[in-house]
């Protein structure tokens, strides 16, 4: 799809860099949506140029801001660490360089107030656009453009069909769907991008399917 005028004049954002600042806020926001609960604690590991030049771009502040639910144009991004502290959220930073990571990447290890944990790996791919590439041990590809359903299920024949027919009965149209698995017959992760918002009721039905261990609905980024 071609770009439109508001991709060229806009977004309104806090500087200095669309990839290292605005993109970083969106990565934090996505990680928070994937956690799906109230953030209690986070460890952020910076990779590639996020680790090397992140400080001058406020990447660390931007990632924390995203985790706190701030938007890329919020002028409080610069105070994000103090805001986190005031909310009693403890966030620590590390750096590491896995050989195959995209230059601007980050791993979040987040814990919510009930003790639930999630690991999210993602990259900023330019112009403020991002991609989530890993949730826990699974490889995914989530851009945050669509409402996204993430399902952890048993890798059995027919599970995908159950999921799609359930979506069809709830009037949700599938834009894209991908399945990845650890090994045949074990756990699989199904990622479904949809055109309509996934209502809580539909999500509940999804969770009741016998082969589904976990299901989460991730709202698109603004």
């Amino acid at each position, binding site marked *: 799809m071609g770009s*439109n*005028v*508001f991709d060229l*004049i*806009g977004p309104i*954002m806090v500087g*200095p860099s669309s990839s290292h600042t*605005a993109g970083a806020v969106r990565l934090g926001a996505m990680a928070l949506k994937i956690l799906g609960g109230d953030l209690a604690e986070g460890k952020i590991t910076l990779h590639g140029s996020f680790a*090397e030049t992140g400080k001058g771009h406020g990447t660390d502040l931007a990632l924390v801001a995203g985790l706190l639910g701030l938007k890329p144009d919020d002028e409080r991004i610069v105070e994000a660490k103090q805001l986190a502290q005031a909310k009693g959220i403890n966030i620590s930073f590390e750096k590491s360089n896995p050989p195959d990571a995209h230059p601007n990447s980050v791993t979040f290890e987040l814990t919510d107030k009930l003790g639930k944990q999630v690991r999210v790996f993602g990259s900023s791919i330019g112009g403020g656009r991002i991609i989530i590439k890993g949730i826990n041990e699974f490889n995914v590809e989530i851009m945050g453009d669509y409402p996204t359903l993430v399902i952890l299920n048993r890798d059995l024949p027919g599970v995908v069909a159950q999921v799609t027919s359930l979506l069809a009965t709830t009037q949700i149209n599938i834009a894209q769907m991908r399945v990845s698995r650890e090994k045949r017959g074990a756990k699989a992760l199904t990622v479904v991008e949809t055109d309509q918002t996934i209502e809580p009721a539909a999500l509940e039905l999804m969770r009741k399917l016998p082969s589904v261990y976990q299901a989460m609905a991730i709202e698109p980024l603004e």
Partner: protein
Amino acid sequence: MRTFEEWVLKSQTEGLKLGQIVLHDQAEQLDKSEQELLARMRENLVVMRESVRLGLTGERRSLSGLVGGDALKVEQRRASGESLVGSVIGGAIAKALAVAEVNASMGKIVAAPTAGSCGVLPAVLLTAEEVYHPNEEDLLLALFTAAGLGVVIADRASISGAEGGCQAEIGSAAGMAAAAAVELAGGSPRQCSDAAAVAMKSFLGLVCDPVAGLVEIPCVKRNAIAASVALSAAEMVLSGVFSAIPLDEVIDTMGEIGRQMPCSLKETAQGGLAITPTGRRVQADFL
């Protein structure tokens, strides 16, 4: 692929401003009313004005501490009446520095087309406003003209320093600003296109070589230079000078040059100013 020429021809035959043609086109593409799009563009204009105002206070310092306060210096000289280049260019330089300094200090800006090049368009637009006193709708339409050119550049070449070097960011911003300035001055669609071509030609080959990888050196000052180039290009074209090479060909060659440019000169901080002795020292001090 889109050409800018299509829009120029359309606006000639329909007798409308380029900004109106782009607005019609985008309303259709985005399936929104023109009023909605104008309102959304107005939000951008408000933030542009605010970033100029804030930057001219001179209170902003970048995270590295290397950048800040220069906009105020230039503005004060202009106010003193001693300016070498006069109030118009002097004011444009100050405004471009102002917005770029706000960006470097984590303030709120409008990417135009990118954050690194965010000072050029507001500086030129608001300078033309001081000269011609257009109404708000005309300012908004001039932004649509600028953004329309950006859409064509993004489609045919690139607007990202990492992909096409600084010519893609600062060069594109200069072209967009020149087109907007000509429209505000009452120039024809053809003149908008020619001014953009003249401005963009001036930046062909410009590499992206930010010191320590930060959007500070040389980025902030390049915004000011690009604003003056855009105004010079507009001035020439409004005087009746043509661009020998048509705009779409300039855009295509910018894309081609960007592809030929080595990676070390595309935002990796591995070449150019970034690896000068001073550039290396800054990097070592900072990190």
